[in-house]
């Protein structure tokens, strides 16, 4: 049963990561590839604060705010770049964050990582076992998903989609598109930071190797497979990846074949999705008439 709670908690975390990435990648059309860095900063910020005696509530908030501020700084300098140029700039940012985590020994303990991160304690209640941690994560996920849903369905959200579809049109309506983009990017980073905090206190051990480009690809597969620019996309993506792939562990195949097999299937799905259903599972469902049409262009 704990195994179920463990997987369900991971699903919530990936849902948060995918939806927050979708916020700017899918809905706003910002091709930024540094989500993993926001996640890592959140995880380290929260773990370090709690390990130095700060209460979890404060650490959790800081874990969101710090990457959000950094994303705005990064955005101010780079968000005007187009498509793949922005992709490369943000990938560079992710690499810088990863080297800082690796080399700032006195703070992050470098390659040794942070071990024994305490379980969260909120108003005197400790969420130590798998079940209670799952309920905590599910609760936070539900709140954040609801907030993101409201944002995306608000007039603000519609402007984001307009920017994605036609930035000039949005500007001609008098919208400050850079400010909108920065806000969407910042919200994405904020939620990724919250997910990082939950991850750190869930696994209780983090090291710089947990936040490298490899892990970005899983978030990206979930987001793309689920459907960029659809709110239900990340739900479907997480379900597809976790519910169909975790049982692969139970196939009567030696573990040394199963690992690579999973990676194969991820990549195959990614390519097939991009080739045949660029709008992902979410798009397949909603827009039957527009099946196969890509919503998000860069």
């Amino acid at each position, binding site marked *: *049963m*704990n*195994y179920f709670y*463990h*997987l369900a908690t*991971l699903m919530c975390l990936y849902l948060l990561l995918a939806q927050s990435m979708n916020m700017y990648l899918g809905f706003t059309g910002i091709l930024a590839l540094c989500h993993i860095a926001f996640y890592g900063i959140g995880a380290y910020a929260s773990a370090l604060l709690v390990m130095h005696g700060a209460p979890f509530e404060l650490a959790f908030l800081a874990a969101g705010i710090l990457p959000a501020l950094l994303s705005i700084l990064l955005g101010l300098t780079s968000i005007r770049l187009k498509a793949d140029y922005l992709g490369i700039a943000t990938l560079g940012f992710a690499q810088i964050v990863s080297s800082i985590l690796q080399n700032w*020994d006195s703070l992050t303990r*470098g*390659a*040794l*990582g942070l*071990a*024994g991160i305490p379980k969260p304690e909120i108003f005197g209640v400790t969420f130590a*076992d*798998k079940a209670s941690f799952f309920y905590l994560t599910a609760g936070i996920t539900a709140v954040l998903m609801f907030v993101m849903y409201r944002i995306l369905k608000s007039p603000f959200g519609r402007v984001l989609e307009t920017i994605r579809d036609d930035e000039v049109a949005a500007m001609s309506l008098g919208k400050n598109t850079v400010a909108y983009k920065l806000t969407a990017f910042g919200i994405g980073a904020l939620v990724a930071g919250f997910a990082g905090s939950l*991850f750190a206190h869930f*696994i*209780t*051990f*983090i*090291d710089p*190797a*947990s936040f490298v480009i*490899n892990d970005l690809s899983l978030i990206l597969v979930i987001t793309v497979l689920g459907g960029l620019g659809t709110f239900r996309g990340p739900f479907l993506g997480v379900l597809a990846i976790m*519910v*169909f792939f975790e*049982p692969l*562990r*139970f*196939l*009567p195949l*030696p*573990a*040394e074949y*199963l*690992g*690579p097999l999973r*990676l194969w299937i991820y990549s195959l799905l990614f390519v097939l999705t991009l080739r045949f259903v660029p709008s992902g599972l979410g798009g*397949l469902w909603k827009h039957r008439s527009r099946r196969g049409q890509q919503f998000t262009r860069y």
Partner: protein
Amino acid sequence: MFRKSLFTAVTLSSVLLASCGGTGSAKTITLGALGPLTGDASSYGIDMQNAASLAVKDINAAWAAEGMTLELQWENGACNGKDGATAAQKLVDVDGAQVILGGFCSSETLAAAPITEAAKVLLFSPGSSSPDVTNAGDYVYRDWPSDSYQGTKLAEFANENGWKTVAMVSEETDYAKGIAGAFTARFQELGGTVTEEKYLSEDTDFKTQITKLNAGAPDAWFVNPQTPVKADVLFKQMQDLGIEGPFLLNDVAGTSNDLLTNYKDYLEGSYTATLYIDEESEGVKAFKANYEATYGSQPNYLGYDLTTYDAVWILANAVLEVGNNGEAVKAYLDSFTGYDGLAGHTDFDANGDPLAGHSVYKIVSGAIVKQ
């Protein structure tokens, strides 16, 4: 159509789930095993798996008379915390493992430990060297020594030799840091003084640090690099500056055959601490031959392979004697009198770390001699 196939897929996977929980015969003992089977570290994981399989084969041959067999249920920890924790959770909950061999990477062991600890499952790592593993939990054991051990060992040795001030030149990496921290802490506790100068892995000129340290006229030097290449440069520059020992060397600097040959005279009479593998012993020779016969190549990481082989034997002996139960095996290991295996004599301290991790060796005409 899509929904229908979705339904079929879910049903199929649940059937698979149900059919795999089957129970083996009462005489088969299954232990969990956790290692990096994919990713950059998979070369360690595959070697670990090979060595463990050889041990299982030998154990089953020995157990045949009693009609018992041993099995390992492998899970992939991918050398990271997330996968290590998920794999451990699966082994504990779904497979009902009471004893787990692994993780191999320190990240796997450190992330798995809270899970196995809560379930009172014994976790036994043959390869994690992070000093953090020492305090990872009561049910966590390992037969690969912590990096900090050699630091402690050398500090005690230096104190016994009557040295009061040691000049240390140390690289900024996790391995070297572990050793430096442990050495300094123990040596100061014993009343000595350590002056440390650090350098970054990309540095190539250490003359400033060496000169500065030499001004303090230390009783002994501690050379603590991450790689033999850096040790070579350090020795060369120390030699140029006319530094004379005695030297204490970490096991990178003190056991490389090339260095011991190239600096034969310079390093004469220096000391190092290492986990020594006697490659000439009959057991190790037989293991290497057996490995090559089975897998068609020499083991890549002989040291880790031998600790893995020994670990499987220690765990097998334990479950045979006290049953496949985490708490019972912990009690067994706590009152352990030691196991003489391929990697030497293994016994544990109160934290589940190996006692005889490192021994002090003296360098005599280009070879290391146990003290």
